C-alpha cells in the first residue's frame, strides 16, 4: 500500500523540537534532524540569517550572540520544511531573539534543562543552579512587566492618534480567551466596521510596534506613512 510509507515519510519530514517533545532528542532524532538540515543547506541558510542578525545587532559579537540563541531555539522549537523554508525559519528566530519575543513555557524550560545537561557532559558547562533558576524567574517577571508596559505605550499611541480601530483590536485581544481570539473579520463584524479598516489598522499597528522596538534599541525610526 502506497499511503503507509507516505505517512511515515511525512512523520519524519519535520522535527517538532524539544519543547513539544518535552525531552532532549534521541540519537535517531538527532540524526534525522541533522540530515534534514543538511538537505536544506543549513550552513548557507545560517549565513543569510547571520547577516540579518548583524543588521539587527549592529556588531559582530551581538550578531554571534543572536545567531547562537536562534540556533538553540531551532532545536527547541523545531522546524517543518513543509511549512516554511529553513532560511526564513532562521531569520524569524533571529528576529524573535533580537526583539525578545521568543517566549517559553515551563515545559520548554524543562526541555532546555535536559539539553543543558547534555552540554554539561561534553562542554563542562554547568547545568542551571538554583541561583540561575531564580535569575530566570526574575527574567520571566521582567518580561511580563516589559510586555505590559509596551502594550500600554501602544495604547497611548492609538489614543493620541484617535485610532479607534486599533483601540478596539487591542481591547478584543486583551479580553479574549486564549483559544477564542477573534479574527479580523470577526472583529469587524463585532464593531460594525468594514474589514478593510482592520487590515489598514494592522499596517498602522505594525508601524507603531516597529517604532517602539526601534526606540528600545535607541534607534531613530523613519518609515513612510502609507495609510
Amino acid at each position, binding site marked *: 500500500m502506497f499511503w503507509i510509507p507516505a505517512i511515515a515519510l511525512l512523520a519524519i519530514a519535520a522535527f517538532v523540537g524539544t519543547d513539544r517533545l518535552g525531552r532532549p532528542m534521541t540519537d535517531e532524532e538527532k540524526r534525522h534532524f541533522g540530515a534534514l538540515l543538511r538537505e536544506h543547506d*543549513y550552513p548557507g541558510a545560517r549565513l543569510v540569517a547571520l547577516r*540579518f542578525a548583524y543588521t539587527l545587532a549592529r556588531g559582530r559579537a551581538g550578531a554571534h550572540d543572536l545567531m547562537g540563541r536562534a540556533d538553540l531555539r531551532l532545536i527547541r522549537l523545531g522546524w517543518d520544511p513543509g511549512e516554511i523554508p529553513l532560511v526564513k525559519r532562521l531569520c524569524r528566530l533571529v528576529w524573535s531573539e533580537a526583539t525578545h519575543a521568543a517566549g517559553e513555557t515551563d515545559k520548554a524550560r524543562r526541555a532546555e534543562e535536559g539539553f543543558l545537561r547534555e552540554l554539561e557532559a561534553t562542554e563542562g558547562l554547568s547545568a542551571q543552579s538554583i541561583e540561575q533558576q531564580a535569575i530566570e524567574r526574575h527574567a520571566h517577571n521582567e518580561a511580563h512587566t516589559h510586555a505590559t508596559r509596551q502594550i500600554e505605550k501602544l495604547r497611548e499611541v492609538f489614543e493620541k492618534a484617535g485610532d479607534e480601530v486599533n483601540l478596539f483590536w487591542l481591547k478584543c485581544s486583551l479580553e479574549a480567551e486564549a483559544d477564542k481570539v477573534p479574527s479580523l473579520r470577526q472583529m469587524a463584524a463585532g464593531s460594525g466596521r468594514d474589514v478593510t479598516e482592520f487590515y489598514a489598522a494592522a499596517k498602522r499597528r505594525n508601524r507603531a510596534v516597529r517604532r517602539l522596538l526601534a526606540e528600545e534599541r535607541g534607534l531613530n525610526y523613519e518609515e513612510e506613512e502609507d495609510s
Partner: protein
Amino acid sequence: MPKRSPEEIWRQLVLEAGEDEIERAANVSVAQAERELAEAGFDIAAERATAEALLRDLESAATPLRRPR
C-alpha cells in the same frame, strides 16, 4: 480558558511587525550574505565550520550536542 498574557500578545505584535523585514532578509542570496558578512569582518570559513560542526554533532548522534556558537 484563561486570557492570553501580555507577553503572548506583545510577542504576537512583534512577530507580525517583523514579517516584512524577515521576508526581505530571507530573500537575500547566500552569495550576497557571504559578501556582506566578509565586508563586515566575519570569517566566512569559520562560520561555515560552526554550522558544519553542529550538523556533524547531530548526524553522528551518539555524540552529545555541542552548543552552537
